[in-house]
């Protein structure tokens, strides 16, 4: 049984359909990223999964329970988009409160404060916290009680690169301990290495749902080579390989994934003339744009 099962879910607000026939499931220990523009339906799906918004049609099961039921909520951790807390409470007071609501020990809350690097600031008012620190409190309350399903809405917006890295370490640990993780994000590059599967939403429809590698194959977007030679050899390299000169030392060329090995051997055949080669597969940004556009064309 998947931890989260979304089946043919539709959400309408009057005549406006914000989520159209979305099916998606997340298994225990799996990290799934939900990508989409603003207004693509990410937050709507998350709110339906949490039982905060009624579903127009279709069904959602959270660990086999109705979304929003006591049994489902007990095993779910949630980090809302731009999480906020009451400014006059201290971080420790706030997290202790969450620990009581989740019926876990206060000791675990204290340990988590240390884990997210807030041990020193724990007894200061949240009003004095930076955005990153508030986000850490938010993450700590998700991890509290080791939920079977963790839902993170734009979790890394406003975090600096180091904090983001630490953030994903904690998410990884959560998944490693058997939690299913579903997160939505705009920061695409960081997701490439940090998630198992990527689901792309566009205008309320699920346009892609697979691992990054599979999505790349599916889209078969060109692979970019950057070949660096020297000032006097670049001209001949250009004639042999084709492509486009970017400066007086290097050139760029594109090929399909199927041609990749052929191009590589052509480059290596040039021998010591080639000083360096960079091979860049299609980035998540490009994939994301590709799948969003495909949907727009067909609709």
């Amino acid at each position, binding site marked *: 049984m998947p931890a989260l099962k979304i089946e043919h879910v539709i959400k309408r607000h009057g005549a406006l359909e914000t989520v159209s026939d979305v099916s998606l499931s997340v298994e225990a220990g799996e990290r799934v990223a939900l990508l989409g523009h603003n207004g693509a339906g990410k937050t709507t799906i998350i*709110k339906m999964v*949490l039982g*905060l*918004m009624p579903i127009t049609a279709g069904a959602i099961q959270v660990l086999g329970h109705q979304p929003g039921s*006591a049994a489902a*909520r*007990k095993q*779910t951790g*949630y980090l*809302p988009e*731009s*999480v*906020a*807390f*009451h400014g*006059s*409470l201290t971080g420790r*007071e*706030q997290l202790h*409160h*969450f620990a*009581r*609501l*989740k*019926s876990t020990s206060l000791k675990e809350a204290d340990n988590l404060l240390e884990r997210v690097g807030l041990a020193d600031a724990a007894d200061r008012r949240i009003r004095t916290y930076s955005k990153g620190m508030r986000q850490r409190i*938010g993450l700590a*309350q998700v991890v509290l009680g080791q939920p079977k399903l963790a839902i993170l809405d734009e979790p890394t917006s406003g975090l600096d690169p180091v904090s983001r890295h630490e953030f994903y370490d904690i998410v990884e640990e959560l998944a490693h301990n058997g939690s299913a993780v579903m997160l939505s994000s705009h920061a695409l590059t960081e997701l490439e290495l940090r998630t198992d599967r990527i689901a792309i939403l566009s205008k309320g429809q699920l346009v892609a749902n697979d691992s990054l590698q599979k999505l790349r194959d599916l889209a078969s977007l060109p692979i970019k080579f950057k070949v660096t030679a020297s000032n006097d050899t670049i001209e001949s390299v250009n004639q042999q390989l084709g492509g486009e000169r970017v400066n007086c030392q290097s050139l760029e060329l594109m090929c399909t994934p199927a041609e990749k090995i052929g191009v590589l051997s052509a480059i290596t055949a040039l021998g010591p003339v080639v000083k360096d080669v960079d091979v860049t597969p299609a980035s998540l940004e490009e994939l994301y744009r590709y799948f969003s556009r495909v949907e727009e064309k067909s609709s």
Partner: protein
Amino acid sequence: MTSIFSIARLELLIARRNLWVATAILLMAMFNVVLTVAGNAPTGELGASPMTIAITSITTLSVYLVPLIGLLLSFDAISGEAERGTLTLELSYPLSRAEILLGKFIAHMVVLGVAIAIGLALTTAIIVSRHGTGAVEWGPLAALYFTSLALGATFLGLGYTISSLVRQTGAASGVAIALWLIAVVLYDLGLLGALVTDAGGTFSKTIFPYALVANPADAFRLLNMPDQSVNMLASGLGAASSVTGFFGQLTSLLLWPIAALLFALLAFRKVEP
């Protein structure tokens, strides 16, 4: 149960650091002291005991102040959380909306209870220091305390209702002030106006007494004005108290808090974060 108390505990922490709450408690204490001291000066001339005079003055004050404090505590209870963005997270936790509301209510009742108790304790202390322990009448004092709590509870519930229905805190505060003005000032003026135009007709005899106790603020006022003569002095509307009587007033004060909390729950259930 743990969830309710955890919410209540958190709300108390917040209230303790809230300048509004501190001001309200201070205001309440100060007014009580001033009224007790001032009301004690002409003792004997009215033939009323010092306690009666103090309670009458404090009742008149509380009719305005207790609903105001109740609304101040509650008007942003839901809308404030919705605006801050804490409501979505709170609602994703394994606890019902009734539990959230009840937790907040318990905390706010504790705040009200402490504020009113401090005021009345000061009043009692002043009377004891001036007239000795014999002058203290515990019955009316306890009645004033508990009816004040009932009055406060009513306006807490109405405040939560407003807070759930009006989603912006700014607008909620406006509606709360309007409600306060209507309940404690305009309602009485309206009744008085109707009474004058009716000039002893059917309205004055049948509808008016019920319309009067239907307002919890008026029920509270009538219940705590022990002496009919003092009552007449304090409020021209006192004459109606004999018709619906003690029972009517008590029923109004007991039913209102329950009704107000039910309204609040119904309104809160409809809130979609």
